[in-house]
């Protein structure tokens, strides 16, 4: 049986990676990811995890080590944040293009400048187009569960793609939460040993990562695009299997009181728990408000999102990153495109909130819902605003 423990989420993440018996961990410490990597380093040093821990000199090297190790057939793990992710990103494109099932915990943090170690989703958006599967956790339990899910999906021969598990920096990484930590047997039942389909092997030489001349690059990208599209059913199937073993049910889009909602707020990550509290309070005052939370970000679960918001007249997209395109945030732009493609035409307002660790409170969500109604009633042109930016 799983143990119910009170544990810092970073430690629980590292313990889960250890239970998955990874072969190689390569990471460079950066706030707020540090505790995850520190604890893995301890587990290896203490002989509790039989893995190669590579203390690299940069995140660029961390991902390079992971690429090499994964190409040789190892189960690999890394973790980073923000600026570290930015340094790593060159190799991240290669990991997905080479179809290497690396798993990364991305402890979400804002991008400098000004220098900020605090939480928002700028790094998640930086990862947006890299070809990695991305899931987003709301709480500590979900971090543990999504890491197990990540390996199961990544290493499935129908997928073979790297996976990022996003967890909010500090808000999750440094929080002590009650967590059902799985047993080794449960983990092994859920995630079978990794069997590479193709690997670097001196007895059977192959070239991984050759030049792609113009006459082949397009086809290479087409194959990669098909791979991530085809990953979606496997992602869903892996969540179904997860429920059978662990009893917890996960969906690509999580909804809360959204069935009959006229107003739907869309959130990503840990602020969703605050948003649910706000939904309860607004419901108590008779307002038909609901919540749709994005758990699977890449590939984007179009059908599930459309089903979740179909009935809403007003949608408030609350996101924690800017796109600097002059008209909307990066997530909202994408959601509007999904709505347009599916013939839905609700009133959408984009709230950019919680940048660089700024708190987003229950009252903030209530005000956002109110603001959304006012704007829609006045028929204001749709757009975005940066919430609580002091004049």
């Amino acid at each position, binding site marked *: 049986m799983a143990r119910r423990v009170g544990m810092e989420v970073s430690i629980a993440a590292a313990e889960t990676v250890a239970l998955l018996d990874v072969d190689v961990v390569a990471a460079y410490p950066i706030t707020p990811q540090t505790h995850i990597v520190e604890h893995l380093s301890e587990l290896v040093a203490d002989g509790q995890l039989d893995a190669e821990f590579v203390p690299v000199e940069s995140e660029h090297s961390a991902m390079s080590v992971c690429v090499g190790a994964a190409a040789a057939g190892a189960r690999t793990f890394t973790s980073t944040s923000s600026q570290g992710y930015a340094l790593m990103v060159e190799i991240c494109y290669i990991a997905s*293009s*080479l*179809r*290497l099932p690396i798993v990364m915990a991305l402890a979400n943090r804002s991008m400098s400048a000004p220098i900020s170690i605090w939480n928002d989703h700028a790094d998640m958006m930086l990862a947006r187009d890299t070809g990695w599967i991305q899931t987003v956790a709301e709480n500590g339990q979900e971090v543990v569960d999504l890491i197990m899910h990540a390996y199961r999906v990544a290493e499935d021969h129908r997928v*073979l793609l790297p996976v990022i598990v996003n967890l909010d920096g500090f808000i999750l990484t440094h929080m002590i939460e009650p967590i059902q930590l799985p047993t080794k047997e449960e983990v092994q039942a859920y995630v079978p040993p990794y069997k590479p*389909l*193709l690997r670097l092997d001196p007895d059977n*030489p*192959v*070239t*991984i*990562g*050759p030049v*792609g001349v113009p*006459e*082949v690059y*397009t*086809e*290479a990208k*087409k*194959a990669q695009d*098909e791979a991530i599209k085809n990953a979606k059913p496997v992602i869903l199937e892996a969540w179904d299997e997860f429920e059978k073993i662990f009893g917890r049910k996960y969906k690509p889009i999580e909804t809360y009181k959204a069935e009959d909602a006229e107003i739907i707020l869309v959130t990503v990550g840990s602020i969703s728990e605050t948003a649910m509290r706000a939904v309860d309070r607004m419901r108590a005052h008779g307002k038909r408000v609901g919540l749709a939370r994005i758990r699977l970000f890449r590939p984007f679960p179009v059908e599930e999102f459309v089903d979740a918001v179909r009935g809403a007249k007003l949608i408030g997209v609350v996101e924690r990153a800017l796109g600097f395109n002059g008209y909307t945030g990066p997530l909202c732009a994408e959601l509007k495109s999904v709505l347009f493609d599916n013939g839905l035409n609700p009133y959408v307002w984009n709230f950019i909130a919680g940048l660089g660790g700024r708190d987003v409170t229950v009252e903030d969500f209530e005000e956002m819902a109110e603001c959304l109604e006012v704007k829609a009633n006045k028929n204001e042109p749709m757009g975005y605003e940066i919430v609580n930016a002091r004049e």
Partner: protein
Amino acid sequence: MAKETGICSWKELALGTAILTPGNASELKTGDWRSMRPVVDYEKCVKCGRCYILCPDMVYSPRDDGYYELNYYYCKGCGICAHECPKGAIEMVEEER
């Protein structure tokens, strides 16, 4: 749109565009865009082999008599061989097209 400009279907590519047959770069024709071609004067050649060693492609190969013969299938016309030949035995001649 489906103009066949690719060398094969995306479905035929190995995982991650890996190459499963080592050494197949020798099939790649690199000699179809040179503007200058090296021509060897065997009267001057002393069989030192620098052209063979320094050619970045696979143009030069040793013959039984110790001289080196050229395979223009690979020659990009870079001129390294002519530049490095200690006897000035290799001349770069303009391609006539």
